[in-house]
C-alpha cells in the first residue's frame, strides 16, 4: 500500500473531513478539517493503515491568519516504509485540541513541547507541563509575536533570585567606556 492509497482509504472512511492529498517533493500531506476528530483519524491510520510509528509532531504559528495554529503530525509505517503527514488547524480563541497520547505514547513529550513553545493545550494529556522552559515562565517563545531577543521575566526559584556578581558585564566593551582595569573588580586596587 502506498501513501497515496492510504489517503484514498482515509477519504473513503472519513469523507469531507479529509482534504485532497497534496504532494510536494514526494511527500503526501493531508489536512484534517476538524481538530476535534484528530484522534479518530489517527487511530484509523494506526490500526487500519499500519502507521505504527509517529515520527514527529510540529506546530505552526500562522500569525495574522485565522485559524492561527496548525499542528503537524508525521506518520510512518515501519512495515511498508510509507509516510504521511496530517495537518489540522486550531483557532487562537480555542487553542486546544484532543491529545493523541492514547495512540502513540511517544507523543507525550512532543505535546508538552508544543504547549511550552506555542501555548496550545492538549486535552486528555496526563502531564501537560512545560518541558524546555521552566515552570512558571509567562510567555510562549515560539509564537511569532514573541521577539527574538526575548522578554524580561521574573525567574522563580532560589538559585538565581539575586543578581549575580558581575551581572550585565563586563562582557562587551563599549567604545569610550571604562577600561577593563577600572571595570573588573578583581583587578581593582584593594586599597581604594
Amino acid at each position: 500500500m502506498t501513501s497515496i492509497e492510504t489517503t484514498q482509504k482515509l477519504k473513503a472512511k472519513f469523507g469531507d473531513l479529509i482534504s485532497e492529498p497534496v504532494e510536494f517533493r514526494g511527500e503526501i500531506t493531508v489536512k484534517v478539517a476538524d481538530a476535534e476528530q484528530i484522534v479518530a483519524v489517527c487511530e484509523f491510520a494506526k490500526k487500519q493503515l499500519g502507521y505504527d510509528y509517529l515520527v514527529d509532531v510540529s506546530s505552526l504559528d500562522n500569525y495574522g491568519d485565522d485559524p492561527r495554529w496548525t499542528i503537524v503530525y508525521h506518520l510512518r509505517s515501519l512495515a511498508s516504509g510509507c509516510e504521511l503527514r496530517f495537518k489540522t488547524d486550531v483557532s487562537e480563541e480555542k487553542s486546544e485540541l484532543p491529545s493523541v497520547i492514547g495512540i502513540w505514547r511517544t507523543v507525550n513529550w512532543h505535546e508538552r513541547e508544543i504547549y511550552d513553545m506555542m501555548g496550545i493545550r492538549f486535552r486528555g494529556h496526563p502531564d501537560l507541563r512545560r518541558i524546555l522552559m521552566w515552570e512558571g515562565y509567562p510567555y510562549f517563545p515560539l509564537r511569532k509575536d514573541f521577539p527574538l531577543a526575548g522578554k524580561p521575566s521574573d525567574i522563580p526559584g532560589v538559585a538565581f533570585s539575586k543578581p549575580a556578581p558581575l551581572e550585565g558585564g563586563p562582557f562587551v566593551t563599549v567604545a569610550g567606556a571604562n577600561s577593563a582595569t577600572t571595570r573588573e573588580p578583581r583587578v581593582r586596587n584593594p586599597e581604594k
Partner: protein
Amino acid sequence: MATVQNIEIPDSAARSTLAADELQDAVGDKMVLNMGPSHPATHGVLRILLELDGEVITKADPDVGYLHRGDEKIAENMTYTQFIPYTDRLDYLAPLANNVAYALAVEKALGIHDKLPPRCQYIRVMCCELARISAHLLGLGAFAMDVGAVTVFLLTFTEREKIYNLAESASGARLTTTYTRIGGLMRDIPPTWCDQVRQFLKEFAVALAEVEVLLTRNRIWVDRLRDLAVISKEMAIDCGLSGPNLRGSGIEWDLRKNQPYLCYKDLQFDIPTGSVGDCYDRYLVRMEEMRQSMRILEQCVNKIPGGAENKTHEPVNVADGKVVLPPKQGVMTKMEELIHQFMLVTEGMNVPSGEVYFGHENPKGELGFYICSKGGGVPYRLKIRSPSFINLSILGELMPGAMVSDVPVILGSIDFVMGESDR
C-alpha cells in the same frame, strides 16, 4: 571544675531492638533523590528526579531544558545558510553528520537533493560515518567509565582525537565544522585526506578490537548490562525510539537502508539488530555499527569519483548559481556571478513555498528537519526532530524497578546529548 557526664550505653539486646525500630520506620518511606542537572553520569545537564524505596527506583521523572537555546526560533530569523553553524551545536559529538542532515533537508526543499554531484555525496557519506564512529566512541567511553572501566575511555578518546584531526584537515575546524553548504560543501577534501582516512581505519581496527576484548566478555560488564532496562519491540515503536536504541530492540530500521539518501545505495553494509533489547544489546549494536562504518569508509575511499586527488576536477557543488556561491574569481570579473553572489549573501536562496521533512540516520537516531517555507531565503518554521529528546522520554518508564546503581548504566546505554535534546 570538672563535670561528670553520664553516658548511657545500652546492652546489645537493647541496641538491636532500637535498630529494628529504626528499620521499621524506614520501610515504606520513600526518598526523593535529585540526580543532576550537573552529575558526571548524566553526560551534560539532564536532571532526573528519582523516587526511591530503599535502593529500588519506584518513579523517575526526567527534567530536560537546561541547555535550551531556542535554535528553532533563531532559525526563523536568519537565512538557510546562516543556520548551518547552529547545527554543529546540536549533537556536538557528531557535528559533521548534523551538517549533512541539515543541508540535505534544505536541498530537499529546494528540489536539488537528487542532483548532488557524486563526489560530494561520497565525501558527505564519509563525514557521516566518521561522525558516527566518533559519537559512538564517546558514548561508549563515557558509558564504560560510568560503569567503572576507565581504560576504555582512554582508548576511545585516543581514536576520537584522530577523527578530530581528519575533521580539521577537511573543514578547518575540529568541533564546529560547518563543513556542508546548501548544494555542496565548503570545499573539496585535501589530496592526502583519503590516505589519512585509510591510516585511521588501520589504527582504529586495532583499538576497537582492544575495546572489544576489554568489554564484550568481561564478567562485570556483562553482569551489569544484561537483562537491564529491556525495551520490547512494541514499546520501542510506540515510544518513537530511533537509531541504535530502536535496532537494539530487534527492529531492522535504518534510514540509510530503508530510505536511502546520498550514495548509500551503492555501498555494502549490514544493519545490526539486537535480540532482547537490554543494555547489553544496545552496546553490541553500537560496536557492530562502528565496524559497519569502517566498511563503508573503506569502500568510499576506494570508490570516490575523481580519486583522492581529484585529478579529473569532479565538482563538489551543484551547478546552480542561485543556490551555491560562485567562485571568487568569477565574482570579480563577471556580471552574472556578481549578481548571484550579492543576492545569495544578502537575501539567501529562494526556497519555494511548501513543506518538507527529511530524516537522517544520525549516530543517536533519526535527526529530522521539518522545514515550512513561504518562499524567500528564511524558513517560516524549522522544527528539529531530535533523537535524544525522544529517546530520553522513555526514561520515566524504563527506570522504575531498577536500582540506583543501574542509573548510569541505563543512561549510558540510551546514549544521548543534551545539546540536541534541548536545542
